[in-house]
């Protein structure tokens, strides 16, 4: 696989299937996670393409209504729990965290492998749900519909997500222990790369929020199977209790999805602007602030669901406050370009695309935080556009940027630069075609999860469906040329971007033990003197 004289690295040191399936090397586990997560991305994308076809016509006559409901539910469940939540922490995070802090591996390598198997078992339950006909409750499982009135496979879907939750908890524990205990001597907290900081905050959210999801899924299972009554008003419960517990996890979960993406952008922008990140301490402060305030704002999902007026006002105010750290980050990224020497390779295009789309997504969040506007646009396509701008325009764009930026480090090969830049522009264009019309649809009053809609919404829906296909083509391109260059790409050498990051100071692809010599000095921007003492490329 590696034509140059046999330089042993973590990929070709042993290539038996057993060595892959029982590996404790964080770099190989990252590959295992990438495979599992991409498999689920394909399922979610197919479901999305199917209901985008359905929405071409106002009548809703392509699929049966029940099948349509199952389509968007599977799209929601698979994309949230099996793609967006694990993708950046478990693939790029797993691979790069030990390299960025100069350690041999994560704190608990076996736990890392166990978390992958737990993720796969949870995934099998979800595949069983899809095979058995899917679930028709929407990814939010609102009771009493999901527990009493839905006769689809809510139980297997809830079990699948319950099990995958433990894989998130294990990753969280692993990352926190690693960052606390395994940093290279000399690498103090304020010398950590920003990507490591975002992984730390994401792990804090993993361990604080995921258990509450496990609780609510246990109760949903018991309510559906034994008619327990916590969420069923007929038996004395309150459906809003379910919504409170569900959104206590699900809002911090959206910060789990976007924080690592912000970390990647905070690595790419300074690198390609040949500049130090502007206001490192404020970006780190903003990351931790997002993790903390992110736990205070879940009520903005329930402004119209019968929550008390007093709670509405508190959550609306806090939802405005949580916008401030994100604004700080956008300002800091822009300021990093000042007096830089900016080059526009593919990762930089993805990063700038992230800033562009994330700013739109964040600002639309302000509309949703305003009580009287949210009353109008809640549960409409405005909300769909808002979170897709942040999840797809933000996290997936940053993920692609990160994959391209660290591709030489992971595989030791270069990707085709022109083709990568072209596909980046295509994705950004396709994305805007798909989701910007949905802002207008939302404000015009088209509710979410609607199979048939009034005729006056058709033009915008057709535009959105067309955009969806451009986006699909856009996603296909990197998949193809990255797989191609995995085998045929030109050799990249240890540090093609001439980066100062600690992960680039070792060979690419790195050897099994990551660093040939003990890493003694970990400050990111190494002066000449530091480069000579012991950090050998």
């Amino acid at each position: 696989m590696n034509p140059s004289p046999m330089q042993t690295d973590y990929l070709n040191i042993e290539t038996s299937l057993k060595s892959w399936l029982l590996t404790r090397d964080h770099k190989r586990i990252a590959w295992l996670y990438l495979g599992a997560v991409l498999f689920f991305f394909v399922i979610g994308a197919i479901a999305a393409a199917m209901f985008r076809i359905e929405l071409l016509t106002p009548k809703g006559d392509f699929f049966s209504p029940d099948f349509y409901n199952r389509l968007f539910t599977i799209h929601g469940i698979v994309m949230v729990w099996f793609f967006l939540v694990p993708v950046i922490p478990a693939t790029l995070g797993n691979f790069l965290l030990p390299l960025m802090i100069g350690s041999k591996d994560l704190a608990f390598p076996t736990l890392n492998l166990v978390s992958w198997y737990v993720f796969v078992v949870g995934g099998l339950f979800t595949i069983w749900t899809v095979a058995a006909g899917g679930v028709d409750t929407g990814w939010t499982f609102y009771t009493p519909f999901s527990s009493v009135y839905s006769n689809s496979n809510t139980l297997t879907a809830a079990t699948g997500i319950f099990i995958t939750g433990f894989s998130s908890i294990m990753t969280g524990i692993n990352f926190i222990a690693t960052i606390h205990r395994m940093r290279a001597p000399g690498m103090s907290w304020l010398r950590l790369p920003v990507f490591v900081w975002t992984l730390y905050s994401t792990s804090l959210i993993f361990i604080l929020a995921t258990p509450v999801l496990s609780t609510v899924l246990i109760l949903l299972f018991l309510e559906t199977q034994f008619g327990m009554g916590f969420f069923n008003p007929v038996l004395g419960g309150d459906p809003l209790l379910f919504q409170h517990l569900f959104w206590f996890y699900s809002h911090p979960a959206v910060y789990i999805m976007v924080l690592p993406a912000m970390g990647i952008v905070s690595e790419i922008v300074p690198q390609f602007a040949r500049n130090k990140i502007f206001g490192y301490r404020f970006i780190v402060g903003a990351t931790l602030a997002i993790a903390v305030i992110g736990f205070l704002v879940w009520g903005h999902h329930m402004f119209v669901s019968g929550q008390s007026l007093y709670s509405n006002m508190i959550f609306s105010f806090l939802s405005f406050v949580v916008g401030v750290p994100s604004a700080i980050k956008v300002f800091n990224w822009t300021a990093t370009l000042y007096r830089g020497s900016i080059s526009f390779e593919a990762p930089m295009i993805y990063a700038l695309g992230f800033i562009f789309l994330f700013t739109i997504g964040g600002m639309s969040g302000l509309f949703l935080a305003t009580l009287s506007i949210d009353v109008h646009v809640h549960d409409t396509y405005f909300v769909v556009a808002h979170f897709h701008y942040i999840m797809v325009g933000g996290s997936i764009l940053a993920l692609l940027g990160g994959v391209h930026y660290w591709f030489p480090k992971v595989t030791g090969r270069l990707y085709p630069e022109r083709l990568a830049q072209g596909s980046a522009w295509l994705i950004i264009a396709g994305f805007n075609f798909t989701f910007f019309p949905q802002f207008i649809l939302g404000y015009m009053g088209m509710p979410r999860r609607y199979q048939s809609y009034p005729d006056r919404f058709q033009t915008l829906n057709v535009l959105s469906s067309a955009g969806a296909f451009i986006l699909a083509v856009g996603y296909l391109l990197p998949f193809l040329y990255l797989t191609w260059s995995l085998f045929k790409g030109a050799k990249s050498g240890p540090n093609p971007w001439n980066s100062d990051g600690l992960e680039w100071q070792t060979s690419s692809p790195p050897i099994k033990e990551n660093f040939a010599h003990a890493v003694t000095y970990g400050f990111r921007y190494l002066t000449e003197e530091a480069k000579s003492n012991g950090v050998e490329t």
Partner: protein
Amino acid sequence: MQGVKSDLFVFAGLLMLLIMTVVGSYWPLGEGLLIWSLAISSLKAYLIIRFYMNFRAGDRATKLFPYLAGVGLFILLLLVSTDFLTR
């Protein structure tokens, strides 16, 4: 033996707190009983964490997480009960 003696004191304290909780339920506290029993349980939890789980011996990292659990639970309980109490 010094350690075991302090454990013994802690055990005695815990038993005494248990008795106070049970006795408290006899008093006509009405709604106050909930606050009384929660206060005593938190005190017992503090004793266990501080002495039995040797909270002080851990370094800064291990100390962070009990506090974090407390803050997380406080946020969850506070904001959810606000909704149900002010409805």
